[in-house]
């Protein structure tokens, strides 16, 4: 047995104006779950504590709560000393009990055709990954789109795709999915991260439903324009200034001895809209002895098309890109754009390794820059944090580059999944929430490593937003200036 102290959110709508925390010290067995700690509170302190539970083995989805802010199943999550237990972010009935029924009611039911027969094996296998849902509603609690739109929720859309895949179903799932907010999903994958069954709703449901919508001509007009642009120019961004590729040679040699070599996948944003940031990144590579090979025949990675379900010519783009790097014998391809990186890693099968710039720099180790005299906070790009599982490396680099680093809560900025172009009011509302978080940190600068996030957050806050490599370059320039000053 061990003793732990936990904070539990209590709320009785008959007596309390709003929820408050109570602290309890309880004795639990080694390996006890959050649920067992709650049982201990009920049995030893207050038998009126309201919370749901049933199967005790992660199969029924009754007991979801937020532990230290993250939705989990209380019966599977290990209890920790000092943890905070709150209800899911849904209307609270009492204490930790929330009203699940309105959301569950939105989850579509199958409408089997009268002549429904057993599906074929491939059809069953396609449905299965979407069938494990236990309707715990962790995803609904965590989804950022739900905070600012009437999006029905990740699992609701999951069910639409499950039904769309079932030959027995006679419903019109695409129309339903659009009504339920198909285009509101930013593909941030927060739902997958909190799902106790690891269901990839954005990848296996949202993007696939958008594909089906595309085949019926229901893609949003703004998204269609992007697809047209990619088809015509190979790029998702219009040329309004000299591009990155127009400004650099195929091989960028480092200043000193060569410590390593990478291919550089530029991405449309860095190539066409913010080329200066990519040029800054090249300076950082040069400074650190890394030779950069930049195939000029590379094109859009296809991410804006895959995320919005316009996949008809994505295979062409993939083939061109893979050839561009493979032909030059490149072993490691570097991305600076989180979206391109996640796409190359997750949607491509590449004969080379793909790494984010923060992985490359931390693996080789960098010359320490002079620390900028600022307080900086870091915004996790969804496609880096969850798309590529990268969170530590950018923080490690940022700590080298600034005097003070402060964390802020991680949440999608609203730029992804075609939302910035397709549903700008949602993107703006999510951006405003980022601004609130940024302001709360008191930071002088927001640092990130994704051009979409950078561009969008800059639109939503008056605090400067910079790419991590720009910060490093500024640190090197400061260092050089200090050396010259002292020389």
């Amino acid at each position, binding site marked *: 047995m061990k003793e732990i102290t936990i904070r539990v959110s209590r709320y009785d709508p008959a007596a309390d104006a709003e929820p408050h925390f109570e602290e309890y010290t309880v004795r639990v067995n080694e390996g006890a*779950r959050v649920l067992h700690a709650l049982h201990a509170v009920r049995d030893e302190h207050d*038998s009126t504590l309201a919370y749901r539970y*049933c199967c005790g083995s992660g199969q*029924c989805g009754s007991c979801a709560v937020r532990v230290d802010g993250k939705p989990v199943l209380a019966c599977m999550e290990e209890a920790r000393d000092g943890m905070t237990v709150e209800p899911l972010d849904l209307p609270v*009935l009492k204490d930790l009990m929330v009203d699940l029924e309105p959301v569950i009611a939105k989850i579509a039911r199958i409408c*089997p055709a009268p002549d429904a027969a057993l599906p074929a094996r491939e059809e069953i296998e396609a449905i299965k990954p979407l069938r494990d849902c*236990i*309707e715990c509603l962790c995803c609904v609690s965590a989804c950022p789109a739900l905070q600012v739109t009437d999006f029905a929720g990740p699992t609701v859309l999951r069910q639409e795709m499950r039904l769309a895949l079932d030959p027995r179903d006679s419903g019109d799932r695409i129309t339903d999915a659009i009504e339920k907010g198909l285009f509101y999903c930013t593909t941030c994958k927060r739902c997958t991260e909190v799902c106790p069954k690891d269901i990839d709703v954005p990848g296996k449901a949202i993007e696939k439903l958008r594909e089906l919508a595309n085949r019926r001509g229901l893609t949003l007009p703004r998204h269609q324009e992007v697809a047209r642009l990619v088809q015509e120019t190979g790029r998702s961004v219009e040329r309004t200034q000299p591009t990155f590729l127009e400004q650099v040679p195929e091989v960028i040699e480092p200043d000193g001895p060569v410590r390593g070599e990478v291919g550089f996948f530029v991405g449309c944003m860095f190539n066409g809209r913010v080329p200066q940031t990519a040029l800054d990144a090249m300076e950082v590579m040069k400074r650190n002895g890394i030779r950069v090979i930049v195939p000029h025949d590379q094109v859009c990675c296809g991410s804006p098309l895959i995320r919005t379900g316009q996949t008809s010519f994505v295979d062409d783009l993939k083939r061109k890109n893979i050839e561009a790097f493979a032909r030059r014998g490149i072993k490691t391809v570097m991305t600076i754009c989180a979206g391109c990186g996640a796409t190359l890693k997750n949607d491509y099968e590449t004969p080379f390794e793909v790494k984010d710039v923060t992985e490359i720099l931390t693996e080789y180790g960098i010359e320490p820059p002079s620390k900028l005299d600022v307080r900086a906070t870091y915004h996790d790009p969804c496609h880096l944090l969850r798309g590529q599982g990268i969170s530590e490396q950018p923080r490690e680099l940022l700590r080298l580059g600034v005097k003070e680093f402060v964390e802020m809560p991680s949440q999608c900025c609203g730029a992804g999944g075609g939302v910035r172009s397709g549903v700008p009011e949602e993107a703006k509302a999510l951006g405003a929430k980022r601004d609130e978080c940024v302001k709360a940190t008191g930071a002088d600068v927001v640092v990130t490593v994704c051009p979409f996030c950078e561009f969008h957050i800059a639109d939503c806050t008056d605090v400067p937003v910079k790419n991590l490599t720009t910060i490093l370059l500024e640190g090197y320039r400061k260092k050089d200036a200090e050396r010259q000053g002292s020389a």
Partner: protein
Amino acid sequence: MVLYNAPTNKMLVDEIVDAHVLVIGSGGAGVRAAVEASRYGGVVLVSKTIAGKGGCTTMAEGGYNAVLREEDSVRVHRDDTLKGGAYLNDPALVDALVREAPERMADLVRWGAVFDVTEDRQVAQRPFGGQRFPRTCYAGDRTGHEMIMTLLDRLDATDTHLYQEVSVVDFVKDENGAVAGAVALDRDGDVVLFRSDATVLATGGGTQAYDISTNSAAGTGDGFAMAYRAGAELIDMEMVQFHPTGAVYPYDARGRLVTEAVRGEGGILLNARRERFMERYDPERMELSTRDVVARAIATEVLEGRGTSRGGVYLDVTHLPAERIEARLPVMLEQFLAFGVDIRREPMEVAPTAHHIMGGVRITPECRTTIPGLFACGEVTGGVHGANRLGGNALADTQVFGKRAGEFAGKAPARSGRVDPAGVDEVTRMLDGFFEGAISPADVRKDLKLTMWNQAGIFRSAPDLRTALGHVRRLADKRLCAASTANLLECCTIRNMCTTASLIVRCALLRPENRGAHVRLDAEVVTDPATSPFSHTYVSLAREGIERREVAA
């Protein structure tokens, strides 16, 4: 389907609901009964939990037995079930089970269930213990969850009125003594009276009466206790299936089911000396022997000092390809990973756990109980599985008898008598009494569970059982205390657990032989299951005893 939440009008009770058919329980049997009864209109389904989240169907992992192939036959399924049940099963119920299980499977498939299928587009089947043909249909290792999601889809297409998080406390009767509905508590502890022409009891099992159990928190034996108090007869309540493989760690999750599918897929059992000990207990069927045999084998290994330090044995699938484990046993993989064990690389540690109550309310093949107006189906009934249930037969049971109960309850005539108000008053007085009680329900629960595990578990004897019965009766007499109206339910639950426990122990004392899951270390007579002179034990408010039967020599 129509949803109802907290009641608004206050009367003697807080709300009155009228129904043609009242179904109590939202597991596989209850929902199937409601679906069928809805063909006759006026169905109300009362669920103690949010529908789909309670009950043990949702948790059922392994599968559903049905004869689907030319090479298999219902005769063989029947013989396997009777043999597995140590010939204590009611043959008429077994006939219905094996004959109709395939049709009920076809219903599920037609309604959208996502069962695994073979290359040639048949429902896939795998081997399970005690069966001569691999006839267990499955959806990975979440078969029951697949079924319940499908059934709820189907229920939604009917006009059944669904009351969620409303818990039935006791039946009410009319002036003729027929069951005429039930009194229930909603989430806040307000009292709801349901009045019905026919009532279907589908509350599932009750192995939560044991310290180590696979059952969900809802498996507290409410239906056994309510039926008993209403005067129904129950049979074979001593027949408690101890599933051979429950998790042993972490302590608070002990008893959690490790599905038989693990052995069906090729998992082997090893003791702490790494001996494949089933060779000594059932060399022919090995790990796929019947559950009673495997559970006793594991318990014996542990009792004789060949268990692990945590009191279990090893269940090993590390010799199977990782991809097969990932595809066929994803829930197991995920659960053990959450507790720090990667079953692809290291063995699981398992020990027996109270899983299923084979006994229960006595029913006819039309699911009629011994009292008018009350039908029953699923685990709350007795007779289908005899002295030991075959893995995969319970899910089939829920569908076959759920459908039957719904059909015959639906066809029941309108009630002629009036609900007896005295019965309703009695329940509300009993509930009020909990506000004056002094004993914490949590303490009684803990005491009861340990008593049942230690004195009425896998190995039994008359002195132990008598000690247990005395103690359970003392616990049942304690004046439980409800801290708020919302806590009334907890008191009612403990009351039901005590009643269920006493029924188990009384029947265990009535059966002097070893039969299936029931083992008396002090058995007075040696019998062979096929020729035993004993049949069902029975217990009701009016009588108790053990039936004798004529057996051809």
